[in-house]
């Protein structure tokens, strides 16, 4: 008996050691993330609380509240993020719905139109819009030929251009999880609804739409989070008129070498991101969001 008990504890200890060794396999990855991401960002956090005189101070945060320009930047960031998310929902949901109803072969073909831009470098897509939307660009040319407007309109280097570019870049992030959720819906529910006398509209809104909600929420929050920290597209298509938090962070460092101000903005940006993701995680599992659609 005694020997048996010892054996059991020994086995238990062995199993524990084995698990720890396996866990150790992830240590190179963990160390790398720790060294390149966690520690530097932790340092930014610290710097944001250091004032110009080198002692603890809240001046970097107070500046954000005091100065009107910062309030404007936060407002613009939220505006752009909300508008982009809203437009993506309006444009993306119907497309996802359309594709989810097609036979598999046709659906895969249509999904390519979603995946192709998803894979293409974001810089290339931003450049494409810059070329298309410029004063002598294709969009202005065609619109004038078709008589939509008379003079070349200014549709880039401003809010309009930024939104067009951002919606184009964010659409796949919305469509993929929504499509995934829609494919998982059991179509028999719709048959049942029709059987019980619900018309197409009613069946859609009371049965299909609620069932697709997890995907829609996941996609929307994903788009919103990505927009909050977005840099490349607004920097190129906004032409300096649309200034988002991320751009202010970059200019604080590149132009003013003000690490305190940049760090404080970074901490606020990170907090907003974490809060949004936390809300998202209440609705769904993290893996679903990140793995979404791939």
């Amino acid at each position, binding site marked *: 008996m005694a020997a048996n008990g010892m054996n059991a504890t020994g086995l238990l200890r062995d199993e524990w050691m084995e698990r720890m060794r396996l866990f150790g396999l992830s240590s*190179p990855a963990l160390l790398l*993330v720790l060294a390149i991401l966690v520690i530097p960002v932790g340092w*930014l956090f610290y710097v944001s609380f250091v004032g110009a005189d080198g002692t603890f101070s809240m001046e970097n945060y107070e500046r954000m509240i005091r100065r009107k320009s910062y309030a404007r930047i936060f407002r613009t960031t939220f505006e752009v993020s909300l508008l982009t998310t809203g437009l993506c929902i309006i444009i993306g949901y119907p497309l996802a719905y359309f594709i989810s109803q097609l036979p598999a072969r046709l659906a895969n073909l249509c999904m390519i139109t979603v995946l192709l831009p998803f894979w293409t470098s974001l*810089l290339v897509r931003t450049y494409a819009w810059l070329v298309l939307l410029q004063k002598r660009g294709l969009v202005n040319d065609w619109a004038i030929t078709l008589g939509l407007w008379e003079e070349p309109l200014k549709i880039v280097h401003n809010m309009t251009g930024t939104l067009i570019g951002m919606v184009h870049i964010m659409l796949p992030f919305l469509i993929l999880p929504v499509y995934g959720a829609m494919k998982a819906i059991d179509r028999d529910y719709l048959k049942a609804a029709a059987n019980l006398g619900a018309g197409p509209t009613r069946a859609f809104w009371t049965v299909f739409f609620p069932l697709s909600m997890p995907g829609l929420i996941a996609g929307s929050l994903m788009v919103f989070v990505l927009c909050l920290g977005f840099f490349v597209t607004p920097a190129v298509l906004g032409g300096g008129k649309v200034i988002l938090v991320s751009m202010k962070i970059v200019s604080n460092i590149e132009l003013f070498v003000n690490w305190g101000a940049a760090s404080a903005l970074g901490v606020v940006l990170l907090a907003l991101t974490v809060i949004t993701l936390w809300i998202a995680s209440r609705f769904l599992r993290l893996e679903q969001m990140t793995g979404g659609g791939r």
Partner: protein
Amino acid sequence: MIGWLSASASETQITHGQRIWLYLLAVVVMLLLVAPTLIVIPMSFSDSQYLEFPPENWSLRWYRFYFSSNEWMLATRTSFAAAFLTMIVATPIGVMAAYGLHASKLPYMRLAFVMLITPMMVPVVLVAIGAFYAYVKLKILYTMTGLVLAHSILAIPLVLIVTGAALKSYDMNQENAARSLGASRFRAFMTITLPQIRFAVISSALLSFLASFDEVVIAMFISGGDNPTLTRNMFNALRDQIDPTIASISTLMILLTTLLMALAQIFGRGSSNR
């Protein structure tokens, strides 16, 4: 045609005719998704300073300029080297982590998983300035090492997710069987597990390559000097004016991405159909 319009389109008994607007909208959106990028391709073959569509005169002018520019060639070499090295670093480290987290089933596993995918969640601007600061201290700013390490932490989450998914659908008992027959865990992994998740691993590697190749913001801060990336130079060129050379580079990048992603999809499919 009329028959089709009044035929039932879905389980809700709606007819095709009643929702023809949906089809039109979908076609327009799909066009808008694909066309803007593709239109750059013919434009890159224009010989005019102003990119026009369709080009009045076709020429390879901008391609010639790209391939004969030392600056662009240096950037291209840097980008390929960084992407290749990122793939070499991130794939094994990521696969090891995915396997470790999958097999150990420790309570901290979730925490480690979350930490490993944070690079995907944290706004990339923060990663960039954090790395910039750290690299100044470590004196590895503008080096290939620094670039590859920073890009690797962006690629690891992709490897972790893709390979992790393959491991979930893999039956670990096969590996246990090999071990009970005397194979070491390492040998069992290499000869039994790895061959079965190989498609996911290849897929992860291709994604890592692209993650590095396409990355802009981090490269903007920590690449430069002798090691500027293609994306960094492109971004700087875009801020100033519309340089037609970018159209030719974009075309080449679209080709490369499409090729790599098609491969990744094929391998990805291989792993799910196995």
